[in-house]
Structures are given as structure tokens and as C-alpha cells.
């Protein structure tokens, strides 16, 4: 594991999912740099303002006003984005939807309901550069 305490950004409009990730990332895993956005208003400016820069960005797809694909496109304009893994975290995991995520250029996709038990290992694999498409429960 190259980064023991990675900085994480999670964009999610649904409060229960944010609460769940908070309990998991901050509570259970004790990560100090966890930021959550509940919408994508002024998305790029808010991301650029982050310190430290996120190592992993989890994006929900159905977010207002910019959806996950639009946020991904915005992130691509950032010069440092090549060091960051951008992973979809979504309940839209029908085959066609995952295909869209793949062709859009996401580094992976984690399905809801989240497999919490294996999450630390999965996160480590994501950080090591592996593309994870964990959509079959």
C-alpha cells in the first residue's frame, strides 16, 4: 500500500449514502482526509480548492446540476488529475450503464449496495492503479 491514508472526495446527493461512507471511511477506517460534496455546484472550483488533493474521487452518477459524466469531463481539465483515480459509486449498474462508465473513461465502478467487508482491500487495489469493475454482487 503506497498511501496508507489517502485523501478521498465523495460526491453524493443521497444523505444515507454519505452517512454510510462517512461511517466507513472516517469511523471504521479512520481516514483523516475525507471530503463530501452533496451536489456538483461549482464543482471544479471546489475540487481545485481541496487541500490535500484527493487521491481517489468517488462520483455518484445521478447528481445535480452536473452528473457523474460531466464531472469526469471537468476533472480532465485539471493538470494533476492523472495522479487521481476517479471511480463511479452508483446504484445504476445495469450492463449498458457500466458500459457507458467504461467508455467514458472511469477508472472503475463500485456498485451499491457497497461491499463494505472487502472495501479496504478494494480501495488499496484502486490506489495501486487497478481498474475495478465490482458490479456483480
Amino acid at each position, binding site marked *: 500500500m503506497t498511501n496508507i491514508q489517502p485523501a478521498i472526495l465523495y460526491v453524493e446527493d443521497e444523505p444515507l449514502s454519505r452517512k454510510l461512507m462517512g461511517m466507513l471511511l472516517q469511523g471504521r477506517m479512520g481516514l483523516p482526509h475525507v471530503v463530501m460534496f452533496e451536489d456538483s455546484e461549482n464543482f471544479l472550483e471546489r475540487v481545485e480548492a481541496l487541500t490535500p488533493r484527493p487521491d481517489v474521487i468517488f462520483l455518484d452518477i445521478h447528481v445535480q446540476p452536473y452528473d457523474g459524466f460531466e464531472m469526469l469531463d471537468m476533472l480532465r481539465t485539471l493538470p494533476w488529475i492523472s495522479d487521481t483515480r476517479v471511480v463511479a459509486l452508483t*446504484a445504476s449498474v445495469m450492463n449498458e450503464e457500466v458500459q457507458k462508465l467504461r467508455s467514458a473513461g472511469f477508472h472503475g465502478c463500485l456498485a*451499491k449496495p457497497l461491499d463494505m467487508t472487502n472495501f479496504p482491500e478494494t480501495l488499496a487495489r484502486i490506489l495501486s492503479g487497478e481498474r475495478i469493475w465490482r458490479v456483480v454482487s
Partner: protein
Amino acid sequence: MKNLSLRIKLILPDAVNVLFTLALILLLVTAGFSVTRRFEAVVDTHLPIVTALEQLKATGAQIVGSGNALLLDVVLPDADDAEDTALEEAQRARTQSAYTEALTHYLELNARRDDTPAGQALTQAVEAAGEELLAAAIAAAAIDEGAPDPINAARVQLEAADSLFAASVEAALARERLLLIEGQNGVRNASARISVLAAVMLAGGLFFGLITRLNVGRTLLLPIDELKHTVDRLRQGDLSARSTLTTGDELGQFAATFNQMAEAIETRTRETDEARAQAERSDKVKSAFLASMSHELRTPLNAVINFTRFVIDGDTGPVNEQQAELLTQVVDSSKHLLTLINDVLDMSKIEAGSLNLFVEDNINLNVILDNVITTGRALINGKPVRLNTDINALPLMIGDQQRITQILLNIISNACKFTEEGEITLRARHSDDEVLISVRDTGPGIAPEDQALVFEAFRQTRTSLRQAGGTGLGMPIARSLAEAHGGRLWLESAPGEGSTFYVALPIHSKTLVVA
């Protein structure tokens, strides 16, 4: 003309041409005969008369000659004797007879033709002058020797009759010669007219022939060109292409039939397009609905399962054994519900025929099998079951990685679910064009009559019904997914002897196209 049958349009000009040519031939033959007749008329009428007049003229001169000889004898009675005079008398009689014969012949010839009054007058003048000449000659012969006065009188009479006769004959001759020349001119003119007429008619015939040929071109080639152009347009996809041909002939009928066909094609194509668009619309609506339903069910399940897990795992404080057991059942039931949602969605997509594979090249089946084995070991979950593997290095293949994983997970989880003790053996082999994976278990086995049910949606065997859980959709979905890859999925089993599920997948399927 426009509505005549093509056959008639083609035959009619030729028939007219043939008739025209026949008429031309007939006309030329008739004209030829007419000219010949005219020529013959000239030759038969005028030439004999001219000859007869010449003859008459000659015999007239002889008569005058012999008359003068007799008168000379009277004037100059010399040594000649009665014998000599008798000879001259005989000569005179012969001359007279020849003259009479010539005159009769001339009159006969004249009587044979239907002459004009002026002509008849000339003939009568010749006849009268002739008679006078004859009378003068006879009078000269009747004079005896030694009577000088009467000789002079007879001589004067003979000379007068001679000049009158000569004048009459010359007049008649002149007229006949004129008629002859006129006749010749008439024949010549008629010939010239016939030549001109023949030339004009031939030229007319050629012109008519040319016009009819051009008309055939117009009647046949132009419509055929138009039809070909229309057919080409339709062939190139211009469904509104119609022939504008409206003639009543076979080509017009063909054009009308073609237009009906084009109409039918256009209508059918439009209907097909509309039906396809409709189907695509409803397919899109259905897909959107399924996607939305999946999303809406997964979101609360995320909270249900994971918040419960937090409680079970003690993140929120200690839980007793009974609480933990009940909460674990909440998690398991929720996960079952999730499987059910996944399977029902998959099945409805399969039954709608809208299952799309995300096809990739170079799929590593060995990696997929490693994941499947890991899941299998977790599913055995402490049961006395050994999971054996016998896996060769497999070639990279084409397919939908996620769906192939799903197929194999369905098979392995089925085996783990139904095997209480013994072993599960996963084998993987490959030939040139196919990978064959088998999962053999030591479970209860499936009765022959139940084997077909395994692959039927929403049907479960009696054995599996006894076992809690399962949607009964896993195997039908797995088989559909295998078939969508161009592969096969089947089982071999007997009650009490366990089951073996086989899945065969093509390595280079030609029906799969890389996304």
C-alpha cells in the same frame, strides 16, 4: 396511336411501307404499259399513213409521168408503132392500178382511226385531188394523135391536177409528220414524268420509312430508358421513384404494374420503419424503466444492508448473539432480495431480446476463474466440502467479461448451495476454438424429468424448492448468457450421483463484435 398495342405499333409502319412499295411497283408497271401503248399508238397509226402517203405520192407522180408520155406520143407521132403504143397503154394501166391501190390503202388506214374533222378534211382533199388526177390522166390517154388543141388542154388539166394532188398529199404528209413528232414528244414527256414520279415516290417511301423507324425509337427506346432510369432510382433507395409512362401499350402496362409495386414497397418500408421506430421507442422506455427500477431498489438496500452490518460488526456498540443472528438474517434476506432484483431484471431483458453484451477482446479466463474460485470457497462457508480445481492455461478470448463471470458464478454458487458434503471439482480445458469448463459436485443430483426444468425461468426442481433461497432464474440466465456468446450450457446428472454442469464458450466467436 398512343394506346395501340406495341405489337401493332411495331407492325403497322412496316405494313404501311410494304403496301406503299407494292403501290409504287403497281404504278410503275401501269405507267410503263401506258407509255408502251402510247408509243405503239404513234408507231401503228402515223408511220403507216406516212408510208401510204409517200406511196400515194410516188404512184401519183408515175401517173403524171405516164400521162405526159402518152401526150408526147400524140404530139410527136414517129417511128413508133402500134406495138409501142400498146406497151405504153399497158404501162399506164399498171400505174393507174398501183395508184388506186395506194389510195385505197391510205383511205383504209384513215378510216381505222378516229381522226379530227380537220384531219378528215385533209384526207378528203387528198382523195378528191387524187380522183381529179386520175380523171386528168384518163382524159390524156383518150386523145388521139394529130389533134393538137386537145393535147394542150389535157396537158394543162394534167399539170393542174398534178400540182393540186401534190399539194394535198404534202399537206397531209406534213400533218402526219407533225403528229408523229408530237406523239414522240408525248411518249418522251410521259417517260420523264414517270421517272420523276418514281423518284418522288421512292424518296417519299424512304422518308416515311425513316420517320416510322424514328417513331419506333420514340415508341420503344424512350419509354424503356425512362423505365430503366426509374428502376435504377428505386434500386438506389429512392422509394418515391415512379414511372411517368402513360401509354396504353405493353410498356405502359408494365410501368403501371411497376408503379403499383413501388407503391407497395414504399408503403411496406414506411410501415416497417414506423414499426421499428415504435419498437425502438418502447424498447428504450422499457430499458429506462428497468434501469430506473434497479437504481431505486439498490439505493435503499445499500443503506439497509450496510447499516445493519455496522450494527452486527459492533461499530455502534456491543450486540448479543441473538441480535447478531437476527441482524445477519436481515443482511442475508436483503442480499437475496438484491439477487432477485438482478435476476428478474436480467431475465426480463433476455425475454425482451434486449440483452446486450459488452464485448471485449483478450479476456483472461484464468483471472475470472480465480475470482470465481475465491467466491466459491466463501460460499462453502464451513461445510465439509472440498473445492478442487483442474485448470489449464487458457487462451485469451473474446466476450463480455462481466457476463462470463456471471455464468460461472451462477454455476459455482449452485454447486455450493446444493452440496452439503463431499467435493466440488472445477475443470477447464480448451481446444482450438472452444473453452470447456465443467463443475462437478457431489450433491443430491437431479432426476431426469427435472433436468429440463433447471433451465426454465421461474421453475425450480423439487429438490431446490426444499432448499431455501434461489430465484430459479440463475441457470436460465446463465444458459441465455452462454448462448448469447455463441456457446452452450448443459448438465449431466442422476439422483444420488451428483451433477455436472458444462459450459462451452467459443474463443473467437464471429458473431461477437468488440465494442
